[in-house]
């Protein structure tokens, strides 16, 4: 009696699933593999192809990919796979990611019922390659990164793996691919600096982080090299210019708080609260950071927000109108510093390169005034240069150089 499983259902990340299919074909290469695309073939075709005899009595694996989200199709597959035998095996691969999983509720009921139906086959095996981690998740994604490095006999510290997630994103295939690449060149213990220097940024905010990290070194030549590296790797000049403008705007906010006499720790928490919704929570001095986090996440739910506005703020219910069709998330979103450690980065640039470099030349009050003046001039110059980058393609590079030069010139 054959121990080879059938039917096998492969769900989850398409890239990782593809690898599972590849390895299965390699493992069972004495079988003849017949791939059927359910999008291009009718269920009659699938039935016929599965049932076709061959001249040589070869054992067959029928691989059905691109599942269709139709009741008839699900019922047909559930019935078809019952014909599994020692010579006929089935692999059902959800290559088009029809089966989705919600982090809270799991796989949707219709598909779960179908999976339960397949489970009735004695040799059924479910291969779940995992789904993308939710946007705000760190707990599971960080431990996933740690476990992947561990498989490669490497150790990554939790802060570094958090930065890794921020730079690479929460797509499982991207994470696996990046871990495999990094494991080849990484030391035994991976720290934050190694991740920053070697991870390939896959999102705009990650580019911001890496490019910003080079800018904040205050080293003109290093910053220019970094700028050219990103330009040559296909990052648009507009994105890089926007990054410098954003940084100069955040820097202006820091300098403005500094002028008001705030200490570095308070400035950091202020800029982290910048642009966050709802402002009545984030700018409430009587709440602790954890209270703010908890309240803000509660108030992201429409119903909670309505009761907060009516009960706590005293706004009559008939004054509140929820537009269900509008993109509420977009309306609520202000300009925030995308990742918390970027605030650290901004503060470290401010402290080390601006305050410490210039404090011996001025009295405290003069220093605060001059630093703010530099920040204003820097911001105005950067916005002017951004216009050039946007509307004058010929001098794009020159404008970017000009911005980098101004940013790395730390003298006030």
């Amino acid at each position, binding site marked *: 009696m054959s121990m080879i499983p059938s039917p096998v259902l492969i769900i989850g990340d398409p890239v990782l699933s593809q690898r599972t299919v590849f390895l299965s074909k390699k493992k069972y290469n004495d079988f003849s593999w017949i791939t059927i695309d359910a999008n291009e073939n*009718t*269920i*009659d075709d699938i*039935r016929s192809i599965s049932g*076709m005899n061959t*001249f040589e009595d070869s054992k067959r694996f029928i691989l059905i990919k691109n599942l269709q989200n139709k009741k*008839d199709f699900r019922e047909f597959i559930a019935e078809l796979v019952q014909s599994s035998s020692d010579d006929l095996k089935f692999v059902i691969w959800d290559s088009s990611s029809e089966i989705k999983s919600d982090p809270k509720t799991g796989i949707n009921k219709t598909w779960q019922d179908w999976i339960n139906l397949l489970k009735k086959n004695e040799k059924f095996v479910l291969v779940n390659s995992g789904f993308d981690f939710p946007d705000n998740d760190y707990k599971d994604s960080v431990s996933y990164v740690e476990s992947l490095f561990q498989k490669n006999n490497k150790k990554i510290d939790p802060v570094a793996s958090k930065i890794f997630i921020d730079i690479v994103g929460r797509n499982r295939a991207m994470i696996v691919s990046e871990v495999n690449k990094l494991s080849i060149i990484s030391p035994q213990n991976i720290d934050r600096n190694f991740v920053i220097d070697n991870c390939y940024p896959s999102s705009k905010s990650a580019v911001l982080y890496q490019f910003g990290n080079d800018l904040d070194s205050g080293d003109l030549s290093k910053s220019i090299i970094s700028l050219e590296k990103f330009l040559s790797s296909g990052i648009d000049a507009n994105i890089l210019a926007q990054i410098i403008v954003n940084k100069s705007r955040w820097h202006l906010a820091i300098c403005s708080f500094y002028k008001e006499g705030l200490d570095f720790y308070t400035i950091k928490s202020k800029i982290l609260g910048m642009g966050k919704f709802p402002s009545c929570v984030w700018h409430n001095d009587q709440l602790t950071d954890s209270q703010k986090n908890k309240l803000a996440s509660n108030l992201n739910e429409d119903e909670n927000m309505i009761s907060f506005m009516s009960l706590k703020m005293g706004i009559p219910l008939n004054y509140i109108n929820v537009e269900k069709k509008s993109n509420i998330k977009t309306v609520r979103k202000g300009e925030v510093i995308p990742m918390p450690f970027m605030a650290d980065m901004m503060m470290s640039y401010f402290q080390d390169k601006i305050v410490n470099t210039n404090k011996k030349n001025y009295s405290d009050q003069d220093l605060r005034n001059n630093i703010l003046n530099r920040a204003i001039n820097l911001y105005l110059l950067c916005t002017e240069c951004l216009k050039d980058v946007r509307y004058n393609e010929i001098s794009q590079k020159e404008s970017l150089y000009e911005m980098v030069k101004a940013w790395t010139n730390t003298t006030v």
Partner: protein
Amino acid sequence: MIFLINQNLFIKALEQGGFAALSDDAQSDKSNMAPILKSVRISIDEDLVIESFTSLISSKWSMKATEDNGIYLKEKGSVIIPANELYAWVSKQSKCKILLKFVESKNPEVISGNNSDYNLDNGTLIKKIGSVKVMSKDDTKTGSQWSLDCYEYDEFISVNYDKNKQHVFTTEVEKFTEALSKVASSCLLEDYNHVFDSVSIEKHESDIYIGGSDKHRFSLYKLQSVSNINDSFFESVTRNVLINTILLRKIMKLSSGLNIEFSYLDNKIVIVQDNWKLRVSVVNINVFNSFPSLKMIFSKTYKKIGLVSKSILSNRLSTVSLVNKSSVLFDFKKDSLTIHAISETGSSPNQADAPVKDIENEVKIVLAVRHLSDLLKIIKDEYIQFYISNDGRSVKFISSEDENISYYAMKVDNPKYNTLLGK
């Protein structure tokens, strides 16, 4: 290098000599070697030679450089130039003479190709050393002229097509082309193992057969006018020789001579015809074992079922396949054939009758619609003779118009027809 050549001769020479460079394999190449793989080398001395190569194919066309042949030598030499561009330009000219003239550049330029990720050693650098001016002039004393880049590459392979090759057989081009067209429809368009997108050449008893299969059906053609069969070759190989079907069809389309000669050398087939020599990589004959062998096919015994009119069968098949385009049940009863189609999609079952002549066995079998419809295209007979194997797993068809053709199709297991099959 300067020479003059008739346009119609040059176009044929480029098609044949530049066969490798003009292939999709070469034209889609993105490696450092791409400029060379996409080019032909044209050499002229006593002979005019045009040759090209890729990792899978190499081709060579040669002819005596004489005025009688339409080649007028002015200055001997050799150039490597892009095949596709040259072929496109030459094919636009008509009924004219074409002049090729090499113009050396004072500043040769090293080109690294499209892929800069791997470096070539100094010894294998590709250099752009000048250009080749191509000029045409017809009866009106007017024409066009163009210039193409000319490369230098020390490692350009000059294949020796005759060394150590083992002659296999010789046949007539026309007969072989016809045989190929009959069996090609049974092959897959693409198979990543390159087994079922190929045709097999195999000897059985004293005849050479060409066959195409997609695992579930097999079309076979007994080659006619075959000479110089090398029996010891066929005895030495454990299985048949496979050649990619699409490639072979392209080769046969360009063939113009009377005879074509097949030889074998280390998993490569050498095809020789008049002025054209080709070497094509084939599947390792000792590695694959999934292609149906003639021994297995001929060891099965078949019994007659009956004769069905081709036009009626074609009509009934297209009617019932409105319900199920994939598989239908053939129910041969006394004097009549009923074709049933049942679908999974919920459409009502469909059936059609057809008269059967000379019925010898009452049979019920589920067959693939496509296998039957392809058969109807290949066989020109007025009546189709059905045979069934003794184990009941396959059917056979033999044409009475052309007895060299035989076609085999395996049955389909479809539980939807179980009730009609009496299971």
